[in-house]
């Protein structure tokens, strides 16, 4: 019996020839991502237990991004604790204000993600990195503490589910619509404890940015990781972004690898999707929900705050005016600069949007765009749980940047295809 790509990466990391789903392994970690919410408690634990050390100062990436710039005194204290620790241990990759961005957009962009490696982060959307044929998974603060101190963690090897994405995407339909359609079909626990492996011709035509939107949301189906194979698009992105360590190993799933299920999607049939409150699995085609009035549009986050997303939104907003408050949040400083250089800011400014500094901010109801009671937001983020972006009685509708931009113009859920040739 062959192995899946996930099993191959984990067996390499565990120093074994073979692993099987369900097996508990101890894996060596290649990259550990630390942000401002989950890391300060991890540091306190390590100090308290008398094991205040780091396994490798070059393999830890520190990205204070959630409440950045500090939204209040308490978050400033979190940043201060992170800052002191980072200096104490001379952590090499510490992204401070001015260079920090939303972690999952920042790490690949700054060349920290390589195929075949095991990446953990104190954040559930660490599964994003699977787009690079790597194993990425999110953990809590205790795991993070153990990871930082030892460079190892226990894992239960997940069984894999295969998702074959056939056909091609129509105009106005993007990778966000594909993942919303997948989660609508299988549910928010449809992939609980599993690896979601994505294959098929639709992927080949997607940029790395678009692919990351898909793996980013694997956790919204309950998965441990989302993963994709390596191809020339992956290679080109890596050639452009890897800095210090440029070598990596490419793993592929064997022909006879075992999958607990195989789901086939005809992506040609997918329409622009909107996930209605309060679950990411409540996706419906725009034709079934267009016209619903909104109060705010949010374009940003680790799901859809990359340059390609901003280009898509700007294309639709160009020469138009938004009728509801609209926030555009480039996910990293480099994306911010590129958007500015490409003239996208003009399109946003002229349309009446506000352009914010890179931050998680409103995505988690933190600050910079929090919703009041009863308000509705069309958002390019990944979660629409109760209270996610503000008041427990506010509502979040998840969609692509194109659908969010079209909806910002109309002030209600709108079909982006009406704004594209």
């Amino acid at each position, binding site marked *: 019996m062959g192995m899946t790509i996930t099993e191959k990466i984990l067996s390499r990391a565990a120093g074994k020839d073979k692993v099987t789903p369900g097996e508990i392994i101890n894996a060596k970690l290649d990259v550990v991502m630390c942000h401002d*919410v*989950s890391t300060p408690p991890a540091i306190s634990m390590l100090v308290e237990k008398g*094991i205040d050390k780091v396994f490798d100062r070059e393999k830890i990436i520190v990205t204070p991004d959630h*409440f950045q710039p500090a939204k209040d005194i308490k978050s400033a204290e979190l940043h201060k604790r992170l800052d002191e620790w980072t200096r104490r241990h001379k952590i090499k990759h510490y992204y401070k204000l001015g260079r920090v961005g939303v972690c999952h957009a920042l790490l690949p962009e700054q060349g920290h993600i390589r195929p075949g490696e095991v990446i953990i982060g104190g954040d559930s959307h660490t599964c994003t990195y699977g787009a690079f044929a790597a194993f990425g998974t*999110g953990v*809590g603060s205790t*795991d993070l503490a153990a990871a930082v101190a030892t460079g190892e963690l226990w894992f239960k090897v997940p069984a894999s589910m295969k998702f074959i994405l056939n056909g091609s995407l129509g105009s106005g339909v993007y990778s966000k619509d594909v993942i919303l359609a997948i989660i609508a079909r299988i549910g928010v626990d449809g992939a*609980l404890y599993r690896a979601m492996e994505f294959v098929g011709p639709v992927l080949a035509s997607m940029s790395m940015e678009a692919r990351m939107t898909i793996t980013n949301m694997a956790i919204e189906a309950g998965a*441990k990781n989302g993963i994709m194979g390596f191809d020339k698009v992956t290679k080109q992105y890596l050639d452009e972004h890897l800095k210090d360590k440029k070598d990596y190993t490419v793993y592929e799933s064997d022909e006879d690898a075992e999958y607990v299920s195989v789901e086939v999607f005809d992506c040609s049939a997918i329409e622009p999707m909107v996930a209605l409150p309060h*679950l990411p699995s409540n996706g419906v085609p725009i034709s079934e929900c267009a016209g619903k009035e909104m109060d705010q549009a949010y374009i940003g986050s680790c799901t859809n705050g990359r340059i390609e997303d901003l280009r898509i939104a700007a294309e639709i907003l160009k020469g138009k005016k938004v009728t509801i408050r609209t926030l555009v949040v480039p996910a990293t400083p480099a994306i911010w600069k590129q958007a500015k250089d490409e003239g996208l800011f003009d399109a946003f400014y002229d349309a009446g949007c506000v352009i914010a500094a890179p931050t998680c901010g409103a995505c988690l109801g933190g600050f910079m765009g929090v919703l009041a009671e009863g308000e509705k937001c069309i958002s390019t983020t990944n979660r629409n749980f109760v209270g996610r972006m503000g008041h427990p009685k506010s509502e979040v509708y998840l969609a692509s940047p194109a659908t969010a931009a079209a909806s910002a113009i109309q002030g209600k859920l709108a079909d982006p295809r009406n704004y594209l040739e």
Partner: protein
Amino acid sequence: MSKVHVYKRDHINTDEIIPARYLNTDDETELAKHCLEDLDVDFVNKVEAGDIIVAGEDFGCGSSREHAIWAIRGAGVQTVIAKTFARIFYRNAINNGFYVIESPEAIEKINNGDELEIDYKTGLIKNETAGIDIKFAPLPDFALEIIKAGGLLNKLVKNNH
């Protein structure tokens, strides 16, 4: 004897357990004040030390915030019994030495306010109010080892000495 708070809901997520607006602190007592706030504002007034939460499928889905465990533990909750748990929440619970119970039938056989007695070793919930026994599979050995040590880090420290 512990009292039960039943939430007949699936997918109770970490934003409901501890809303992100409170994540600017990791102080357990502070977090506990907002435990389950967006699901049931009254929970913190009702809960007493040693109480138990019972819920449906996929409990703790969403974010990786360990703050969810700390809020629940800080509020005095002894354990959570759910049909199934979301992966990261389950892992965080074990790593914190907090025993959670997976039981597909508990939600059908336990009502609000019931009094329970739990034998974690053999995997038995005695519902004293209803007079029924509910069996569950005890946690696997490696997880018990972590819980026995009082959490993953304590186990690490022990192994280092």
